[in-house]
């Protein structure tokens, strides 16, 4: 499925859009990590919590749990939260 990458993570992907697979958000992030080593830990901490300033939207709705199911045609958008003024 299509994944939109924020500018702060494009040092890993070298582009703003990529493809990844997974039946859940957790699996999708594992696939991203496989393709772009290091990228997952910048977004998700060692306790599997989405980091404070990272937001992930699936088809326009914010995903709050890594267990959220995904379908092949979903669109995932990763953004850095608007914080800091």
């Amino acid at each position, binding site marked *: 499925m299509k994944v939109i990458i924020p500018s*702060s*993570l494009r040092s890993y992907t070298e582009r703003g859009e990529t493809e990844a697979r997974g039946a859940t958000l957790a699996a999708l992030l594992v696939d991203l990590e496989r393709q772009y*080593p*290091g990228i997952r*830990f*910048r*977004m*998700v*901490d*060692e*306790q*599997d*919590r989405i*980091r404070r*300033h*990272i937001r992930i939207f699936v088809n326009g709705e914010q995903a709050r749990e890594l267990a959220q199911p995904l379908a092949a045609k979903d669109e995932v958008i990763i953004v*850095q*939260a608007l*914080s*800091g003024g």
Partner: protein
Amino acid sequence: MARKTGKATARKGRTGSRTLVLVATRKGAWLYHGDASRKSWRADGPHFLGHNVSHLVLDPRDGKTLLAAAKTGHLGPTIFRSTDFGKSWKEAARPPAFAKAADGKEGRSVDHTFWLAPGRAQDRDVWYAGTSPQGLFRSTDGGVAWEPYSIINDDPQFREWMGTVQDGTPDGPKLHSIIVDPRDGRHLYIAMSGGGVHESTDSGRSWKTLIKGLDVVEGFGFDPAKPSFHDPHCMRLSPTNPDRLYQQNHCGIYRLDRPSDTWARVGKSMPKEIGDIGFPLVVHPRDPDTVWVFPMDGTQVWPRTSPGGKPAAYVTRNGGKTWQRLDAGLPRSQAWWTVKRQCMAADARDPVALYVGHGGGELWIGRDEGRRWSCIARHLPEIYAVETAELS
């Protein structure tokens, strides 16, 4: 442990040696390459513009591997590694991270790696890292993969001493001042802000608290025997006498000569109007009796700025019996510097030069062991750490 002195050798002025000053800031990192006489400096940076870089260290064992502890405001923490003086950087495959908590338990996550310490000369590729919240990590492959190290991170007693985020420095409690005894790699010292000083002689499997003789903040009935009430700011081992430690902490400047386990407050001989509060402390590379500090105002609400707006280093040349002010060339008034615990370093040349960075983004050199100061760089972001290395 037998006393050893004076084995290190100095690199004289113009022998081809070059000093590299490594500057970590709130918004990136810079390398300053000095010429042979340390008079002109070439700036190389920014590296990681926009990243909070807590520490940038060159591996003294191979003279070419750089490690940088970095994070951004939005992304998680990591370690970057370079083997070509920053022309290219590669991220650690496994940055420091706490163990995953069991189901139903609240686990900790590393906010940032604060302190990087290379292992002994003969333990090539061994590095230690201290983090915020407080944790100790180790790499045995030159900083590529990091693992939690020793019992500290999950030990209930240590966790109690570490306290919560409210018990540390304003930007998070920190494990720092990781020292490896050059004679025995199993012999470690660490300091925790807060949480005191601790020593291990068995590679971190067990620890002994080293807080005897240290004062605690007066007037609140704090028990000095409790590590939670101790806030070491910076602890250093003499490079030429590994039985001598110095410490700048929240309540003064202290010295410890092993095997004694009782610290002596050598800061009491500082001028009363200056006091002995501060953050960084530097030991002379060849003389265990010579130490520099950079005092900060620790009165009332703890401004943590140069006392009276007049920055100065102070040096002792007799192990803390007496101190002399070193401010020639520094601003004479209205200079409210904050100099953090990692922000003063010495090079290994003869004569030694000191390097100081402050919160207002200036890097200064104190030539001739701090007797003559001049500014190397202005307009940098807030400086978090200054280190030096000698390049042949």
